[in-house]
């Protein structure tokens, strides 16, 4: 009970704790500073990806979805006025984040980086991509085709 901490040890402890606290107080704002604040939520907002008539059947288009590219495809033989004729996905390849493109000769979505092929449901057909492209929901309002990130 009566064990005494030597004065020097106590002072060293207080000094160390003080320096440690100062370090944390300095580093915390720095650590927070280097990650930017969330951009105004893209959440489930939708973008006008194209106008009706812009795409012919068996044609694809890359559009800007927030800060990332998306891809809109009018399926071969599809009716340009029907939302179900379109398919929209993220255009960011699931392998190494390259931007994919539509190949009208193959009727597939294709990534040039490592020759990854996806079908028009976003599923991987061949190549190294580990998973399917995330699909977006397509809706038609007036003469514009809207794509939203809500579950398709």
């Amino acid at each position, binding site marked *: 009970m009566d064990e005494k901490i030597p004065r020097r040890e106590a002072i060293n402890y207080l000094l160390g704790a003080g320096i440690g606290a100062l370090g944390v107080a300095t580093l915390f704002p720095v650590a927070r500073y*280097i*990650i*930017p604040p969330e*951009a105004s939520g893209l959440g489930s907002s939708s973008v006008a990806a194209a106008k009706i008539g812009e795409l012919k059947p068996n044609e694809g288009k*890359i*559009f*800007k979805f*927030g*800060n*990332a*590219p998306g891809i809109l495809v009018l399926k071969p033989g599809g009716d340009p006025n029907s939302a179900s004729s379109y398919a929209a996905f993220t*255009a*960011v*390849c699931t*392998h*190494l*984040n*390259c*931007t*994919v*493109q539509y190949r009208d000769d193959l009727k597939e979505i294709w*990534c*040039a*980086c*490592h*020759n990854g092929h996806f079908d028009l449901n976003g599923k991987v057909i061949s190549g*190294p991509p*580990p998973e399917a492209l995330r699909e977006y929901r397509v809706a038609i309002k007036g003469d514009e085709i809207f794509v939203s990130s809500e579950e398709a």
Partner: protein
Amino acid sequence: MPGRSKVYEWFNTRADIDNILKFMKKKTVPHHRYSLWYYIGGMCLFLFIVQVVTGILLLLYYKPTAEAAFESVQYIMTEVPFGWLIRSVHSYAANLFIGFVFIHMFSVFLMKGYRKPRELTWVSGAFLLFIALGFGFSGYLLPWNQLAYLATNVGTNFAVMVPFVGEWLLEFMRGGPEVTGATLTRFFGFHVAVLPGICTVLLAAHIILIQRHGMSTPVSIEKEIETGKARRLEIPFFPNFLYRDMLGWTLALGLIILLSTLFPWELGEKADILKPAPPHVRPEWFFVFMYQTLKYVPKALGVFGFAVAGIIWIILPFMDGKSNRGERNRIFTIIGVAALLYIIIFTFIGYVAPGE
């Protein structure tokens, strides 16, 4: 001392210049059939200095934002007097620098120059290689062209595979979840402030260690000297070795300026999020062997494999007991040659393999 100016004596009294001159007069370099490889390190240093000088010059006109970066490089290439030369020299010298850093590393490895007491020189050199690759990766994005935008998407995407802090690291590098103007501004900061700062400290340590140890003589030459098959030959560093160094630097600078004049470095087209990756797209040549590997093995395995290989490569000197005892170690020679062949073959495949 007689014959010396008052100015010299004034400085000598305060900074002991005699002592520095004594060290410089004493400094020698071993001379044998592998001596040529001793010049590669100095070549790296020279090219690094070229990068510092041309980099500072580019800073006078470059603007690190998504809106202005491409246009500012275009301005440097087309409007600024000799801007095309300065930027082309910066790009060519950067690539030559990385090439010589690789040659330097493999020549040191194969001659077992890392063996005791030079382990720390090797480790500092390994970290300098990572810094050099970081310079290459961050600098590549700065002109904000389409290929750089795609390459940065691919390169930063690997960050998510780091356990526990992957997502944080990705956002730290990109300045957000995606590659945007925020990434460009950040990479600019890494390229001109963070990396040069770290590099200066590491480079100073690397060079001071080399001065304290002198150049390493390969085990095979040491054996020949021991058995009397060869004599120990040395040449003075000042001026004999330095003059030979400078000859190489002059040739390198001549080559860089020749290439810059005949084939000024391309700018490409401005980064556009709406453009897909073109066929045969690939990163800078010194990343191609890793990029090509990921075509054949699952991403996680490939990245994990390269991470482990990189760590082993750094700590290898501590595992080479034989060389440390001054014995020849053929297994380590085979490891070095295998690593070199792997890099060469996969780089080659990356350039000639059909894209589809």
